């Protein structure tokens, strides 16, 4: 810490000994935090480190069990978000809270009860959006906006209330690298005008680039305070997880096998009105390689994963070929019998039945391939044996094979699900967001498990919104934009800048009219 008590009056927000005790869990344990006026302050830590709880306390969503909140020199109690906003605290959530069928102005008006005059409000929105470089059409309907634009609406909505502290929760998880840079400019401008910013993220590069100070949390406590510019990713990560990061073992592809997944002109209309149609997708994946699909969320990744797993039926046989079999019309169970496995994006409710035990959840995908069903009956003994094996070899922290899936933390359930699929030795594995919401240590473990499976000759498709993860894992990378897929390229030949351009739909040979529309949406 560089500051001392003489600076105290300049502090915008100070937390002293904040604790939050939930039944059975200590989410925050005597947390201290000091944010100066005009400072961009990072709060970093693994999932479950207590960052979200701390922000909820500051924003008045939940009261602390103990400790003091000091706002501009005065002790306060924040009993509701409305009270927080009245004090000058604004928050942009990771999951947007906008009504898709209303316009931008109408959405903003809902948060400003005193705003009655809609044309005047639209003018104010235009003014703020101009001033901070946040281009948004006030008359546009939200469902027609890209995620980046929606985030701008959320930020503008906060700014109209003239906040003196802005809390941003993982703001760049939905942005292209270029769009993230634009956001940083806006945040720097805000800070220069005296607004303090609390910036929550687990992307260490960003934090080192943007933030003045960082408070690192681990297990509900503050494990360190630092100036991120003076640290390396390695030292920051060590502070977060309390030990050194495991290093992935990723030798280059030795032997490329035969084509195991061929997408031959896959097109599919989305059944959700706000979903993305898949358009003429071509892609080959061979045994012994990992191919990644990069892209900003909502560009058809979910639809692609469901079309591959067999969750969404296709009318034609030929667009999806699994191990040489035209599998378009086959359902998920039939595709699994061909040797394919799949890890869906939503682990609880799709990858696992929340109320069922881990051993029962093994039957979900292992009925045929693991012989957990014999003559129409579920073999409880075999299912329990398999669950035991999976728990042991994937280091799943739980009370045992009888633990309900919903009793596990997100990271441990993800380890169980990935373990369940990999232990079936699939010839082809499709993984969506393999390490979403998983802590750094578990993420490294899961990536290694995927690489090991590749080294045993499997073909693997990884769909992820984390570019760092794709570069670490993949041999080749393709980019998805507006339901189309670019040609795949060796990961080593890609730069971050180039992939960002491709994520806006502008790859060489792309359908330019579609690409232009896409780039307008993803612009900035």
């Amino acid at each position, binding site marked *: 810490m560089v500051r001392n008590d003489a600076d105290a009056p300049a502090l915008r927000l100070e937390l002293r000994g904040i604790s939050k005790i939930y039944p059975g869990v200590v989410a925050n344990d005597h947390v201290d935090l000091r944010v100066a006026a005009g400072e961009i302050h990072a709060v970093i830590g693994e999932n479950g480190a207590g960052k979200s709880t701390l922000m909820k306390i500051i924003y008045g969503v939940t009261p602390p069990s103990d400790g003091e909140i000091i706002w501009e020199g005065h002790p306060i109690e924040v009993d509701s978000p409305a009270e927080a906003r009245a004090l000058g605290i604004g928050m942009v959530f990771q999951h947007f809270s906008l009504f898709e069928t209303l316009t931008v102005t109408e959405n903003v008006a809902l948060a400003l009860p005193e705003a009655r005059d809609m044309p005047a409000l639209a003018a104010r929105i235009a003014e703020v959006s101009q001033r901070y470089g946040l281009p948004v059409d006030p008359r546009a309907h939200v469902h027609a906006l890209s995620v980046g634009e929606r985030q701008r609406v959320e930020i503008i909505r906060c700014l109209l209330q003239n906040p003196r502290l802005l809390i941003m929760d993982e703001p760049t998880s939905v942005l292209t690298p270029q769009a993230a840079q634009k956001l940083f400019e806006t945040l720097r401008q805000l800070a220069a005008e005296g607004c303090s910013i609390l910036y929550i993220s687990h992307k260490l590069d960003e934090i080192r680039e943007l933030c003045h100070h960082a408070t690192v949390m681990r297990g509900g406590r503050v494990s360190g305070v630092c100036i991120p510019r003076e640290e390396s990713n390695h030292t920051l990560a060590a502070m977060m997880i309390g030990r050194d990061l495991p290093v992935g073992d990723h030798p280059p592809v030795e032997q490329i096998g035969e084509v195991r997944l061929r997408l031959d002109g896959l097109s599919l209309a989305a059944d959700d009105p706000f979903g993305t149609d898949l358009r003429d997708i071509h892609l080959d994946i061979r045994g012994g390689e990992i191919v990644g699909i990069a892209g900003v969320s909502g560009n058809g990744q979910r639809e692609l994963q469901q079309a591959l797993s067999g969750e969404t039926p296709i009318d034609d046989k030929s667009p999806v070929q699994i191990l040489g079999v035209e599998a378009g019309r086959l359902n998920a169970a039939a*595709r699994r019998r061909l040797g394919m496995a799949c890890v869906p994006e939503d682990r609880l409710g799709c990858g696992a039945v929340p109320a069922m035990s881990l051993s029962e959840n093994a039957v979900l*995908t292992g009925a045929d391939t693991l012989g957990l069903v014999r003559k129409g009956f579920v073999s409880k003994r075999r299912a329990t044996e398999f669950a035991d094996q999976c728990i042991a070899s994937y280091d799943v922290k739980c009370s045992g094979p009888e633990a309900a899936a919903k009793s596990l933390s997100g990271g441990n359930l993800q380890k169980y699900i990935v373990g369940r699929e990999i232990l079936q030795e699939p010839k082809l594995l499709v993984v969506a967001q393999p390490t979403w919401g998983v802590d750094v240590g578990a993420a490294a473990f899961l990536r290694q498990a995927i690489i090991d499976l590749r080294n045993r000759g499997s073909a693997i498709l990884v769909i992820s919104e984390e570019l760092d993860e794709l570069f670490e894992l993949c041999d080749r990378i393709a980019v998805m934009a507006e339901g189309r897929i670019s040609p795949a390229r060796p990961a080593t030949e890609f730069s971050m800048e180039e992939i960002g351009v491709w994520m806006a739909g502008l790859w060489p040979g792309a359908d330019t009219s579609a690409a232009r529309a896409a780039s307008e949406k993803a612009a900035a």
Partner: protein
Amino acid sequence: MKWIRIEARQEPDPLMRFGSPVLAVTLTVLAGLLVFAVLGKDPVEGFKVFFLNPLRDTYALSELFLKATPLMLCALGLAVGFQANVWNIGAEGQFIFGAIGATGVALYGGELGLANSPTLMLGLMMLAGAISGALYAAIPAWLRTHFHASEILVSLMLVYVANLFCSWLVFGPWMDPDGQNFPQTRSFDDAALLPTILEGTRLNLALPLALGLLLIGHVYLNHSYAGFKMRVAGGAEFAARYAGYSSRRMVWIGLLAGGATAGLAGMAEVAGPVGQLTDKIAAGYGFAAIIVAFVGRLNPFGIFLASVVMALFYIGGEQAQQYLSLPSAIAKVFQGLLLFFLLATDLFVNYRLRLGRSAHH
């Protein structure tokens, strides 16, 4: 600060899961005593008449199980669907159609020379009852799988269609010519009546049949792969899709199972205690079975116990009518109380009550 708080449990309480129906029954009995007192009856006397009379001797017990049989049959089939979130609310209508199908065999079977072969006659009646009930349940299943029509509404509305169709039959073509214009068919021949299994009582073959089906239901739901799929579909729709289970098949199995067992219960009613088809044949069994299925935790053993409790309320209601001159609606009041208390106590499977000041803040 608040003095009573409801707090989420980290995991559902297994004790409460099975304790909640017991608690609900207890509260129903206590509330019942209060109802007696408010109606100006001596609660102790009321308790004796309502709850102890139906248990006093072998004959009373045989009547209790006779009443419980159609309830456990209907509730078992419903539970198969409910496990997969297929909401068949029309067991009452499927019961009526089962009764109609079985009556058809009983009335015309004699002409085909079945009167001399009770086994064949009863076998055909059971088959006709189960198939009629299942076919009637196939209507909501088909509408749901082809047009996304809500099976809740369709199956419920079909109950009234079944009621009117049954009335038309017993007031019209099937009316007993010697029955002094009562809305009923002629009494069945002996060959078309289920044999009693206990001398001097009306308890018949339907009870062992229902118990056997409960056992099969237990194996199906808790040990078979098909039953596992139903539970997955009920627990998480997207997981069922991810695993590759057909949601249409779940709808068909759920509704056909419910229709078949309700139809069988209808058969057992016309071929058992009633001995003919009347316009009041269903007596609310199909609706009461919904409560039985839930009080029994959609579990065949639980359904057995719950159907006996529900039968107690039916018979207790009759007794209260007879000895305490209370209105017949008292049985319905008790059914309603039981469902009400069950829904209330079920809250505590996932939540706990905290008394005293908040520990936090």
